[in-house]
Every structure is written in structure tokens, then in C-alpha cells.
């Protein structure tokens, strides 16, 4: 009875309920965390199969996560220690928020400009990685962070220009509207540019220099252990879901059946994960100058072409 009165006195707007449902249930945490583990497994399994191995069992990322939760962490004190504990939490929260913003289900609600918020949330985990490496005060962490910063400056120009060209050609910054509009030729050009940026965003092999295993120990993660490392693994998995999900929502055909929309979303994301893992296992790590040259000299030209043609089309219409 009291509950009803309270509800009647403070009616909760439907928008907040949908937003919470999207953040917590689908495509948010309840869906995204198992999906993150699944994608991490697919990545390792695909690499193993490409190398002629059998690879880890299906539940491996889950085992790793639980095991890391049960490990101890080195004592951390002062502001630096507090920051070191905070960065993985911020990374997980922002990656989960980015997944929650994806318009997977038809008519799931959204707002004008949620594409910009999604881009910001997708960028936060890599900012956290840079900050984490520097606040760990490990020399390897600092090298890894510097590399991550340089890499982020290189691919983000192309990444943002690609998104901008898609948004400008379709006259909207709302993800829902973008997903519903019929795709144009320019959108596919933009999606191709996005796909070129994804290995750098996810630290996959041709561009895996920030966390270059064995070369600079573990890069920014060198000093992390136990539950904090588990959070980093989770945020990496969530980044997988968010980044592949962004491409999937742009590619997916518009359907009204909700279960079909969800199925198409998962299938396309899975395909992109397979593609990226295959590329990762077939290539070797590039040096930092080659990577920067790749993005600034080769890819940037196409991105600028895409944006300028999008703007010209807009002026003409």
C-alpha cells in the first residue's frame, strides 16, 4: 500500500526505466558480461585454431576471472594507490555504459547525440589504461602508456572522421535513427574505416604495442594483480562487445522482430570477432613508427575523402 502511494507520489518517467533496463539487462550488464567472456574465448580459440592447436576450454575466461578475484593484491597506499584501484572500475563502468547505449532492439529509445556519448564512453577505457600505466610508476607501465597514448592519437583521428562521415551523410547523431535509415555507399566506406581502426582500439596483433607481451612485460598492466586485473580483463571484454556492437548496429538490416534483431546483432558481432582474431593471429606486431605512419599517411586519406564527400553531399541536398 505504502509502495503504491510512494509510486503515485513520485512517478518514475518511462525513459529512466528503459535506460536502466538497457544498462542493466539488455544489451547492458546481464547480457554484456557473458558476451564479453564469450568473445574473449572466441579470440583465444580462433588464434589457437589458426596455429593448429586445440586451445582453451569454453569456460576459460570465466575461470580466469574467478581465479583472479581470489588472489591477493600488493598493498597500495596514498592517492596513487587509490587511483590505481579506481582506474579499472572506471574502465569497466564506461565500457558497460557504451554497450548499454547500443540500439540493438528496435524502438528501444535513445536521444539525439547518443552517438557522441557512445564515442566518449568507448574512449574512456583507453584513457584509463594510459593513466593506470603512469600511476603504477613502473618503468614498463610508463612505456606501455606512452605507446597507448601515441596509438590513441593516431587511430582516433581516422575513427572519429569515419563516424563523422557516417553521421554527416545521414544527417543525424542519433544511433537509433542511424540504425533505421537505409545505408548509403558512404556508410560502408565509413564502416570499412572503422574496421581498420578496431585492431588498434582492442590492442590486437598488428597494433598490439601498448601491451606488447614479453617485450615490455605487460605494458600498463604490469603492476596490476588479482581483482584489479580481473576488472581490466572484463573491461577489455566489454570493449570487444561495444566496439563490434557499434559496427554491427551500423551494418545490421532494420527488422521489427526484437528476437531477430538481437540474433542478427550477436551473429554480426561474432563474425567481426572471428575476422579480427584471424587477422591478429596472421600478422606480427608492427613498430610504433610504422603504426603511426599507417594511420596518418594511408588510412587518413580515405577518411578525409569520406568526410569531404559526406559534407559535399549534404550541401547539395
Amino acid at each position, binding site marked *: 500500500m505504502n509502495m503504491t502511494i510512494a509510486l503515485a507520489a513520485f512517478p518514475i518517467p518511462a525513459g529512466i526505466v528503459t535506460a536502466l533496463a538497457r544498462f542493466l539487462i539488455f544489451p547492458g550488464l546481464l547480457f554484456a558480461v557473458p558476451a564479453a567472456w564469450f568473445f574473449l574465448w572466441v579470440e583465444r580459440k580462433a588464434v589457437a585454431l589458426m596455429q593448429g592447436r586445440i586451445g582453451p576450454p569454453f569456460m576459460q575466461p570465466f575461470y580466469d576471472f*574467478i*581465479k583472479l578475484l581470489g588472489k*591477493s*593484491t*600488493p598493498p597500495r597506499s596514498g592517492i596513487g594507490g587509490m587511483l590505481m584501484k579506481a582506474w579499472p572500475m572506471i574502465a569497466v563502468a564506461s565500457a558497460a555504459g557504451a554497450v548499454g547505449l547500443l540500439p540493438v532492439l528496435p524502438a528501444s529509445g535513445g536521444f539525439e547525440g547518443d552517438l557522441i556519448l557512445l564515442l566518449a564512453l568507448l574512449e574512456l577505457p583507453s584513457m584509463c589504461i594510459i593513466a593506470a600505466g603512469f600511476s603504477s610508476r613502473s618503468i614498463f607501465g610508463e612505456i606501455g602508456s606512452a605507446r597507448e597514448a601515441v596509438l590513441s592519437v593516431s587511430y582516433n583521428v581516422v575513427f572519429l572522421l569515419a563516424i563523422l562521415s557516417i553521421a554527416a551523410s545521414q544527417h543525424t547523431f542519433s544511433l537509433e535513427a542511424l540504425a533505421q535509415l537505409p545505408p548509403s555507399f558512404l556508410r560502408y566506406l565509413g564502416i570499412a574505416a572503422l574496421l581498420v581502426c578496431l585492431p588498434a582500439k582492442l590492442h590486437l596483433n598488428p597494433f598490439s604495442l601498448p601491451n606488447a607481451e614479453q617485450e615490455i*612485460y605487460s605494458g600498463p598492466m604490469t*603492476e596490476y*594483480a588479482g581483482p584489479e586485473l580481473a576488472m581490466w580483463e572484463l573491461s577489455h571484454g566489454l570493449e570487444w562487445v561495444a566496439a563490434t556492437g557499434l559496427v554491427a548496429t551500423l551494418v545490421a538490416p532494420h527488422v521489427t522482430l526484437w528476437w531477430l534483431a538481437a540474433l542478427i546483432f550477436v551473429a554480426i558481432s561474432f563474425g567481426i570477432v572471428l575476422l579480427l582474431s584471424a587477422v591478429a593471429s596472421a600478422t606480427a606486431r608492427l613498430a610504433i613508427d610504422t603504426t603511426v605512419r599507417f594511420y596518418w599517411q594511408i588510412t587518413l586519406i580515405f577518411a578525409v575523402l569520406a568526410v569531404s564527400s559526406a559534407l559535399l553531399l549534404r550541401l547539395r541536398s
Partner: protein
Amino acid sequence: MKLWNKLMCYCRRRSPWIFHMNAGSCNGCDIELVASLSPRYDAEQLGVRLEGSPRHADILCITGPVTHNAAKAIQTVYGQVCGPKAVVAIGSCPATTNVFIDSRTIDGPLEKHLPVDVFVPGCPPRPDAIVQGVARAAAILAERELNKSTAVSIMVPIVENGCACGDGAECKAGEVQQ
């Protein structure tokens, strides 16, 4: 709580992350350790991952008869591994200092410096013996914090032909067939 402990035990046994450290080895055992991760032996099926940082590792794999230079470094790295942790001594060198015995440059064997959980003898040991040793160490590690036992050294017998299961009658703990 009991269920959580059971789950933790299960997950620890299936996710041993190793850190490899060379304490003056001739590189023979190091090659075999890397071979155990290769397509032929594929230790990743057991969840083994070779980690770049000792902070991430559960199992410290040490090769070589401990040289004077390496003695301090070993203790530093052992301190950097977060608990619960286990140590696997790979090859005959860390177990007995092997052919380098009584050398004035050697401060071995390894047990003088660290509590060793599993010895994998051999010069060098076969990759399947190393995989078996890591699996044994993971099983020890899984129970470690639950009943707070100290290190009990176990010898992994030399595997003759491809037996890395750890369940065979000839693979009993404590037996060395050399």
C-alpha cells in the same frame, strides 16, 4: 561460502598462469618450456598462459642452477608473485645443481632459497613432463589457501611416452624414476 570456496578451487585448478624465470640455465629447459606451449603439446588446453609480469602469475617456473647473481633476483620475483602461489623447479639444475655441483659461481640448489612445490627432473625434461608438473602445481595451488598448508615438495617422474595425465599408476607423487 562453502560453495564459493569450491568454485574458487575449481577455477584455480583450471587457470594456472605461469611466469618463467631463468636462474642461470643453459637455455635447454627454457626451450622445452616454450615447446610445451607449442601446437604439439598445447598447454593452453589446461588454461596455462605464459604471463609477462610476475604480478599476474600463479606459478613461478624456475630453470637453472641458482647462480650468485640470480639468487637475489629469484627472491625479489618470488615476492612479486601475489598469493596463493606455487613454485615449479624445471630440470635437474634447480633440484641438484646437476653438473655444476660444487662450482664456486653457484649458490644452489633452489630449495635453499624458496619453498619448491614441484620438481620436474630431466636434463632437459620433456615438454609433457613440464605440462604435468604445472598441472600438479595447479592442483596443489587450488587447495592452498583453503587449508593453509606449507609447501610439500613433489617429484614429477620422467614421463616416458606421452603420459601427461597425472593419473597413471606410475605417476604417484614422491617417486622419482631416474
